[in-house]
Structure formats: C-alpha cells, structure tokens
C-alpha cells in the first residue's frame, strides 16, 4: 500500500499519527509532521520529550505502534533500515558510530564505494577508482577533514569525529538527512566547524535537525517543531517559536543540558 | 601513528631475533667421529606422558649400567618429545635422521606415531625400535621396524585361552576405541570363540572417556560370566573402582583383562578393588627372576616410581640396539638391522627372542592375579604360555 493520502509533491517525508507505546508509557503520541523538499527543519524539545524515539521510528529502528511513515509519498512504515537508506533517508547518530580503526578517508571511500555499488570489489585496491577518490577529496574538504584524512579515526579530536559522522551520512547523497544532535558535546572552537558545515549542506537535501544547541537551531532552521512528552506542542518559524509563551514556559525556560548523549537510550 | 611505526620496528626486531635463533639451530652440535647417536622420540607431554616417563627412566638406567659404550664407540642418546602428535613425531624422526645422522630411531609411545614414522625408516634404511606401541600391524609398516614391547594379540589371546579353560562360557568385551583396543577385541573374541566360548556383546568406550557407568551398566544387564577389558594404562584404576561400585563383582561377573589395566605404575593406588583381577601380560614387576629383582631394585633406586611394562620395553630396546652395535662395530643401516634380528636374551620379563622374519618380539605371556605382597599390590604370575609369537602375524 503506497501513498493513499494525497500529499503535495514537495513533501519528502511525512508522518501520519505516529504512536509508540512502551508498556504503559506513550513515548510518541499521535505525531503528524511534514518535511518539505530542501527543508531546514528542526525538532526541539526538553530531555525525554521523545525526539530520539521519533527518529528511530523514521529510520526503522523502532516499529511504531500506530500510524504511518511516508517517504516521497511511499509508505515505508514497515521497511527495513538499510532499505530506507537506499531510498535516500539517511541519519547521523547521536552517539558516534564510526569505524574506529579506519581513517576518515577510508571510511568515506567505503561509503562512496558502497553507494556506487563498488564495495564488493576484491582485486583492485581501494584508491584505484578515480571517481571515488575525487568524491572523497570533495567530501573531506566540505567537512574540513582534509588535514585529518589519514589519521586513525579513534585518534581524531571529538569535533572531527562528529564531522566525519555527518560526512558519512552525506556521502550517501541523501534526499532526507536526519541530524541527531550533531553538535552534542562538541567544545566551542570546533562547534563553529559543525555549524558552518551543516549550514553549507546542499539545498536539495532536506534536513531534519534534532538539537539542544539553540544557537545552532536558530541559525539553521527555517521551521521548528516543538515536541513535549511525545506530543507536538507547536510548529512555526524561529520567530514564532521564540515568541511563543507556551514554548518559553516548557522549554526555553529550562537550561541547555550539560552533556547530551548521557540521556536517551 | 607513531606507535604503529614503533610496533613495526618491534616486529622487525622480533624477526631479526628469530632469524638469529634459526642460525643458532642451523649451526647444530659438532659431531665427533667416535660417537654414534640414537634418536629416541617419546611422548613426554600430553595424555600419554607416563609412557614417556617410564621409558625415559629405563633408558637412563640402561645407559648408566652399560656405561654408554657400544661397538667400541660412545653412544649418545637424543631424546625428543613429540607430545603424542603424529606429524611432530615424523618431523623429529626426519631431523634426527637427516641432521643428526642417528644410527637408529627408538621410542614411539602410540600406534599412529610409529606408523607415521615408518616411511622415514624405510626411506633412510634406519632401524626403528618400537618400545611401546602395541598394535600388531606396526612391524609390517616398514622392513626396518623392530619391536621390543609386545603386541596386544599376544596378551589378548593368552587370556582368552585361559578363560576358556577355566569354565568361563559367556564374555562381554569392553575396549578403548582405538587401534590397540580393536586388536584386543578382535583377537580375544576370535580365540575365545575358537575355544567354544560365546561373546555376548562387544563394547567400546571413547579413548578419553572417564565415566564408565553406561558401559558397565550394559555389561551388568547382559550378565556374562566374565568381562574382558582392555584400556590404555592409566584408566584401569578408574575402571575397576566403578566396576566394584556398580556391584558387578557381587553380581558374579569376573573381571579379566590384559596387563595394561593393572599397570604396575598405578597398581598400588588402585586399592583393594584390583585384588583378584586375572590378567595376562609379558611383564610384572613381581616376576620372580634374579634379572628382574636387580632391574626393579636399580630402577627404583633411581626413580620414585615402580617400573612397568613400558619401561621394560625401553630397557630391552636399548639392549637390542647396543648388542647390535657391538656386532657391527658401530655401523648402522642394514647391517645394524640384521644384527638386531634373531637376538635372544634374558630380559627382566623373562626369555625373549627377536623373530628374524617378523622382527617382532617372541616372549612368554604370563597369566597373573593381583595380590597383596608385603603391603603392596602386585601382579603375581601363576601360569605361563611359553614363547608366544604375535598371533596377528600367523594369518
């Protein structure tokens, strides 16, 4: 069953009345939201608002109890994670998921090769494919990893690892990119890199950003959705949200968490 | 990446070290003209280490007694450990022959070890003295193999005859599931049936097996007159304890066995359960002869433990080699082999002959009963079958 509902064709990702219950708790409560093509969309909310739970349902890590997820009008509610990747729905992880012993260059080369269906080649050494090399070079530059291209990933500074995390996702040429707290725990100076690279993401990529860092959110997002206790509290432009008394009350009031990544699963 | 570069250096260092080690090995020991070498390969480690220990001790005893001289030359014995792994045995044999130029190979704790080495003996025309392994076929694996231990058919047929003569009609056989075990089973049953007995069942236990409960239970349910057992020396104690614990003795089932089960090496620790077990073998530490009394005395003077049939195999093996070397003035090859064939001498076990045709040992097989002799358990011989050839060869 695909896109039974009529969706304006500039909608790339859409959820219809998503509900997720864990035993008694309702982590996601009838969430319907729309991501438009080229969107710069931010999902904010206090700790435990169910942001990560929602992401996991979008990417297929969790199966929703009710409701549907549509990607470009196609129903992907029951689709396996890696199949969603193939359809262009790509995510970054709140906690780095990197190849510790590879170098950023190798990791990216592998990601690119994978996308180009060349990750199964077993004779020609990695690096013998000019197209892949060129793409890697470009990605390294785009994510300011050029000088670290050849370091072992586990030895990179945290900020650089964060950038690599995003770069690996972008290397998939996603149509929709879910950024799960990209700036989480990144110290000041390196944070700038992240803001810049995220801002510089190509326009044809629609981005859904989950973030506590208000500077990032407000500098980046054109649309904000506020999630509280698994329910959509409100949605609007940064200005509207900033002005919204409800939001101030439940969210902006509370301090930005010290160490994101300590909470959520 | 600095550390990985250093580790790379480290590896290079390692390799350099190994290379030099190889060089040292390569140099090898200088070879003097007036010495002959004998290469002995034994399982000093692993499950059958006790075999190696016994033979090793016996060889040392022989060297001490003989002054380590034969055919006017100094004899050097190189003892290698193969841990009971066949391909190691073969490699060691290869090196002993090619590098150390030994005139004879000896030892061989288990059948596969001997069989694996046989081709080397044949190719290099080096006499190979089997001091322990007891499967019949071994001596047929190479014309250069001489055996000074015994063959299981010798022991098995002997006890089979005795059983048939002593109104035992129905027997169950229980053997460890490997070469010698199969031999024991085959030759006992055929001989026993030949003499009109019946074999109720033929049971096998895994070689490493420890819990005999199931097998023994089966024996009990079959209610034979006697149970014939062959187990590699070492498992005997275990077995007899469980034999009694299961009440087979009370159920009137006799226990007869080959001497491996009541191995002198462990007999003393077996306790009263072993008392009265009738078994057949070629050597008992209690063999009543001057030669043996001296042997046991000297042996125990040098070691904490009692000599068993393995040790006597090693001791006689050395004698055979030495006497042959005396005859050939230290020469090896076919001459040495020829000088080994047909040797007749008084061994601690009794009179023995190296059969010139089969190169296998011909010896008396004794029927013994485990008894307590001044506080210690011994296999006391009460019947003798004279000059038993290996029945495996009389096809």
């Amino acid at each position, binding site marked *: 069953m695909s896109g039974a509902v009529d969706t304006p064709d500039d909608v790339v990702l859409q959820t219809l009345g998503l509900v997720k219950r864990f035993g008694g708790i309702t982590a996601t409560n009838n969430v319907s939201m729309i991501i438009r093509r080229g969107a710069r969309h931010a999902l904010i909310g206090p700790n435990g608002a169910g942001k990560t739970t929602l992401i996991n349902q979008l990417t297929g890590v969790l199966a929703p109890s009710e409701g549907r997820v549509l990607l470009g009008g196609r129903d992907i509610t029951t689709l396996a994670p890696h199949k969603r990747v193939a359809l262009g729905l790509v995510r970054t992880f709140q906690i780095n998921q990197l190849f510790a012993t590879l170098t950023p260059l190798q990791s990216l080369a592998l990601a690119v090769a994978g996308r180009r269906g060349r990750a199964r080649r077993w004779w020609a050494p990695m690096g013998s494919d000019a197209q892949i090399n060129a793409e890697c070079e470009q990605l390294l530059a785009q994510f300011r990893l050029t000088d670290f291209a050849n370091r072992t990933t586990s030895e990179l500074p945290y900020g650089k690892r964060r950038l690599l995390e995003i770069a690996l996702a972008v290397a998939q040429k996603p149509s929709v990119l879910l950024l799960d707290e990209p700036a989480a725990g990144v110290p000041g100076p390196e944070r700038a890199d992240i803001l810049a690279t995220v801002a510089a993401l190509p326009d044809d990529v629609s981005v859904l950003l989950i973030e506590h860092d208000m500077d990032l959110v407000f500098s980046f997002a054109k649309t904000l959705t506020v999630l509280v206790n698994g329910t959509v509290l409100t949605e609007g432009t940064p200005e509207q949200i900033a002005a919204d008394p409800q939001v101030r009350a439940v969210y902006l009031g509370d301090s930005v968490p010290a160490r994101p990544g300590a909470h959520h699963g | 990446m600095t550390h990985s570069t250093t580790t790379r250096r480290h590896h290079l260092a390692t390799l350099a070290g190994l290379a030099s080690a190889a060089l040292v090995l390569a140099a090898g020991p200088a070879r003097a003209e007036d010495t002959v070498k004998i290469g002995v390969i034994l399982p000093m480690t692993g499950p059958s280490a006790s075999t190696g220990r016994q033979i090793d001790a016996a060889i040392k005893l022989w060297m001490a007694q003989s002054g380590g001289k034969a055919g006017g030359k100094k004899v050097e014995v190189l003892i290698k450990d193969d841990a009971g792994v066949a391909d190691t045995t073969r490699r060691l044999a290869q090196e002993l022959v090619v590098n150390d130029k030994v005139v004879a190979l000896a030892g061989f704790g288990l059948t596969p070890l001997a069989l694996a080495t046989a081709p080397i003996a044949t190719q290099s025309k080096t006499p190979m003295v089997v001091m322990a392994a007891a499967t019949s076929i071994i001596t047929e694996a190479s014309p250069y193999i001489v055996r000074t231990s015994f063959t299981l058919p010798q022991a098995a047929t002997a006890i089979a005859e005795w059983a048939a003569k002593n109104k035992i009609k129905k027997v169950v056989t229980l053997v460890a599931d490997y070469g010698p075990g199969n031999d024991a089973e085959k030759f006992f049953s055929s001989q026993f049936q030949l003499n009109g007995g019946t074999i109720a069942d033929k049971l096998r236990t895994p070689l490493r097996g420890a819990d005999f409960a199931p097998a023994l239970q*089966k024996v009990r349910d079959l209610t034979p007159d006697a149970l014939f057992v062959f187990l590699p020396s070492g498992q005997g104690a275990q077995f007899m304890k469980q034999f009694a614990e299961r009440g087979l003795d009370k159920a009137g089932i006799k226990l007869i066995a080959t001497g491996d089960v009541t191995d002198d090496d462990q007999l003393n620790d077996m306790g009263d359960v072993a008392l009265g077990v009738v078994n057949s073998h070629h050597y008992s530490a209690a063999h009543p002869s001057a030669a043996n009394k001296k042997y046991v005395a000297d042996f125990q003077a040098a070691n904490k433990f009692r000599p068993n049939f393995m040790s006597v195999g090693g001791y006689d093996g050395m004698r055979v080699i030495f006497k042959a070397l005396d005859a050939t003035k230290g020469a090896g090859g076919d001459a040495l082999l020829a000088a080994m064939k047909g040797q007749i001498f008084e061994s601690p076990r009794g009179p023995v002959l190296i059969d010139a045709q089969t190169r296998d040992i011909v010896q008396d097989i004794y029927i013994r009963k485990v008894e307590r002799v001044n506080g210690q358990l011994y296999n006391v011989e009460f019947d003798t079958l004279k000059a038993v050839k290996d029945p495996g060869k009389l096809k």
Partner: protein
Amino acid sequence: MLTLLFDGIAYGMLLFVLALGLAVTMGLMNFINLAHGAFAMAGGYILILLMQRAGWPFLACLPAAFVITAAAGALLERTIYRPMYGKPHLDQVLFSIGLTFMAVASVDFFIGSSPQNVQLPDWLRQRFEFGSGPWMLGMGAYRLFIIATCLALALGLQAVLSRTRFGSRLRAAVDDPRVAAGLGIPVNRIFLLTFAVGSGLAGLGGALGADILGLDPTFPLKFMVYFLIVCAVGGTSSITGPLTAALLLGIADVMGKYYLPKLGAFIVYVLMIAILLWRPQGLFSREGKR
C-alpha cells in the same frame, strides 16, 4: 533404565556444581573464564593430597577443597583477573587458556601426570538396589551422596539468591553491572565474593568428581567443553538454567553411551550446536541478554 537415569542425574548434578561458578562469572562480568576447570582440578588434587599425604577423612577434605580453592580464586581475582574485565572476549579466552596451561604443567611437574585415585570410605562404596528387570534401580551410595550434596547446594544457593540482600544485589548486578553500580551496589566486592564462591564450588565439584570423572593434569582441558556447554546452553542469567542444562547434558550423555555407544559424544555436540543456533542466548535466558 532407571539406573541409567539415576547415573545421568548424578553426572549432571556434578557438572552443575562444576560449571555454576563459570556461569555466574559470565553472567556477572561477561567474562569467559576457560581456566575454571583448573580450579576444579585444584579441588580434586587438594582432596587427594589431604587424604593420601595428610590422611584426612574424606568428609573433612570436601570443605577443605572448597575453602582453599575459594581462597585461591579470591586471590587470583584480586591480582590478575580484575584487569581483564571489560577486555575483549578474545583476550579473556587467551588469558584463561594461558592460566589453564600453566596449571596443567605445574600439576604435571609437582604431582606427576599419572591419574589419581580417591580411596572412598566404605560406607560410600555400598550399593542399593530395588526392583528388577528394566525397572531395576541400582544406586551407588557415592552417586547418591553426590546428588544429595549438589541438590542441597543448589537449593541453598537458590535461597541465598532469592532471599538475602546479597542475592538481590547479585541479581541486579548480573542483569546490568553498570546500572547496579549506578545504584551504589559495590559490584566489585560482589564479584570478588561471587568469583571466590564460584571457584570454591568448582573445587568442591572437582573433589566430588575426582572419583567418577577421573583426575589427571589434563582434567581442565578434558572437561572445559562440558562446562562451556552447560553455560552456553543453560544461559547465565539464573541458577535453574545451568541446572537444567547440566541435567540434560548428564542424562543425554549417559543414555547416549548406553543405547548408541557407536555415536559417543557426537550426540552431545550436535545437540549443543542445534540449541545454540536456535537460541543463541541459551535455552533458559531472557532474549537480548549478552
């Protein structure tokens, strides 16, 4: 028939006591300790030495075996095991294999490679028999004694785990060491204690089993597989899991050797593989536990 069942149960009970410590170690610290068998061997040799060299009575040797191996376990846990927690499984495996090798070689060196025998007191050598024919039940006093002892141990441990505070803390720690530590449970101390008791039990099992399983320096290697099977199949999250697994293993082994002696240990291994493929977490453990 019944007799076989009885033997199988005795064998299984023995395996249970031998393997329990290993199961707990795995469950608690996710530590694969292949050297567990070495503690069992130690227990066996302590029994032998005390009985033969020091002439202690059999019954006195059993607790001694427990105490001494437990102490040894505690010592080793403090000194060399602790640094290995959290290390990759492979490292743990190699580490404990190394320990086993050392133990085997040392025993070989100090006591000798020949198998040891226990001189059981006479009252343990008798045999009781009931009925006849296929339903005849014959029970060796010693196996009866083993079953009784192990059963008592199992019940006792179950009680400790379910009733006492230590038990609840232990269970919490087994479920999730990190959370437990977060709740202020002294996981390290609990583990030290558990490890010691586990080793002690192994020692006791080794002492009890010396007579039935046989005792020589290769003991740890010979029975390692069986212990691991008990843990892998029984899972490491409860006592009942390993117990059931051990009993199954014991009975299957005895029955197999009686009715299909040709197949030998074959059945056991195939069963193990099948079960592990079917339930990678073990038969009796909650899914998803690692």
